[in-house]
């Protein structure tokens, strides 16, 4: 833990994420309020960053083509983008831990079946699956969460499976079994708590990945639908006005990069601090 606190990467990651989460939670306090509020469309559209409109309202990041304040949309979009990322990772980590634990400590044909399922799901191209699932039903925020959650659990399942298998052979687990603890109790109280370290690292990296994937889907129009702001659909709306108002697409992209960098650095730092013996590199997927 001490090593983690001294790590500059972890410090940057924690501070950056804390800032963004604070802004998202306190959105009404740090912005003008309604992200969909449109001013006088002719007088207030495409105002450059740091300008003040006719009504005296200050626009730190300018306005978009409907005269909506980009900073307000960015902050409310953080609620959506971070929320989607965190929820999706919550789903995939829960699924992954459950599958991995049962595959690692279950009996009978169950482990083999679960491992087969995991390997199959890993071999399915995630981008194809994402596009297919997201394009089949009417796009919505909930659909993005579910689709990202259901396509991201396999890595965690593999990790947990390996950890559980290794821990199950350790003396303290044999001891617990010897004193007569039931298998489910041994798994829940003795094995799983010790198997979660790599899961935390995977979750930190996974949040960054999920946020990127959400923005890619929303950028393609398959994710969060306007007027609800998300960083992905904000970039998409800025694409058409790149010449007149480059800030509309730039701001959410910069925010996205900062958050993903923070997640990645935090994940790297945690891995180095919590499991010095583990392999120090871990390639993670890239959306498009």
């Amino acid at each position: 833990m001490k090593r983690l606190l001294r790590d500059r990467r972890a410090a940057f990651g924690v501070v950056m994420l804390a800032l963004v989460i604070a802004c998202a939670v306190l959105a009404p306090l740090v912005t003008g309020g309604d992200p969909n509020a449109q001013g006088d469309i002719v007088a207030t559209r495409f105002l450059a960053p740091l300008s003040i409109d006719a009504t005296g309202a200050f626009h730190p990041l300018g306005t978009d083509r409907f005269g909506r304040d980009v900073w307000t949309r960015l902050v409310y979009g953080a609620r959506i983008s971070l929320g989607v990322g965190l929820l999706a990772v919550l789903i995939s980590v829960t699924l992954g831990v459950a599958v991995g634990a049962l595959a690692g400590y279950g009996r009978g044909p169950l482990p083999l079946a679960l491992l087969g399922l995991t390997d199959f799901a890993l071999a399915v191209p995630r981008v194809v699956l994402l596009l297919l699932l997201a394009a089949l039903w009417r796009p919505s925020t909930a659909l993005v969460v579910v689709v990202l959650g259901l396509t991201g659990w396999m890595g965690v399942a593999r990790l947990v499976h390996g950890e559980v298998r290794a821990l199950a052979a350790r003396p303290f687990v044999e001891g617990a079994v010897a004193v007569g603890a039931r298998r489910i109790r041994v798994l829940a109280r003795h094995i799983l708590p010790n198997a979660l370290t790599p899961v935390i690292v995977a979750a930190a990296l996974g949040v960054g990945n999920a946020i990127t994937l959400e923005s890619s889907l929303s950028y393609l129009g398959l994710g969060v639908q306007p007027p609800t702001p998300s960083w992905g659909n904000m970039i998409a709306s800025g694409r058409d006005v790149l010449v007149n108002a480059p800030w509309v697409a730039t701001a959410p992209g910069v925010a996205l990069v900062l958050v993903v960098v923070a997640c990645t650095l935090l994940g790297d730092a945690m891995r180095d601090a919590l499991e010095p013996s583990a392999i120090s590199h871990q390639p993670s997927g890239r959306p498009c």
Partner: protein
Amino acid sequence: MLTRLAARALAGFGVVAGVVTLTFFLLRVAPGDPVEHLLGPAARPEQLATQRHALGLDRPMAVQYTAWVTRFVRGDWGISIAKGRPVRTVLGDAWPTTVRLVGLSLLLSYLLGIATGAVQAHRRGTRTDTALSVITVTLFAVPGFWLGLMLVMVFTYWARALPAFGAAGLDADYLTGWSRIVDGLRHLALPLATLTLIGVGGSARFVRGAMMDLAAQPFVTTARAKGLTPWQVTRRHILRNALTPVVTLLGLSLPALFSGAVLVEAVQARDYPVVTAATAVSATLVVAGNLLADALAAWLDPRIGKRQA
């Protein structure tokens, strides 16, 4: 080793078959209908029924599936419902451009990534390492679609230096010799730069990590102890060994050769034949990439094949 590869190939075939079957039924179970997309909202029910019958979509699903599989394995991929052209041409049109672009960018991003990662691992802990780490982690985090937009904004709209789209200028047919090559390169520049840059981050981080792991190995200590210069140790003993996992990673990038754009368009039009064939192609690429990676890794490092056999 060969038996193992054969078994893996068989399992891979199973995966492709499973994915394709899943797609086939998922498409038909999900809401939406290709005929409604084709004929539009003004179509009368009997017109829809006639069209469905003509396309064979009114038959039981199991019959449709069997018929599709038999034709597909014989190389008859059917005709796109939305476009009326053979599925093979729909999927194949973009293929040469995509392969050239993605192939080049993979090559460039790995070369750059290996060089960057090697420099970082060689000078680990120094300011150079930190600075390059900041750059690579940023590139790793940048979404490709946004980086593309930013490059277009800077180089096309502001600097007016490079074209944003197309593979050749409108006057390309009238250009000759060098100017034609220059025109092609100018059109290649932005997409190539985008794809290369987003790839460099990942590969550099990977190479650096792999080399740092190897640096702690006993054989590196031996190499140093026998009096080699640090650069010789890095180049001959660490880098060479680190390239094995990099080759594996390269195999895993094979699916990037398939563009998702065709798929999105086809799924939204419920163009069943195109979607199923596109899924089959990309699943095959993923499976083949995994196999290729394994085979290359085993060939480069004979211990891998023996350990797992």
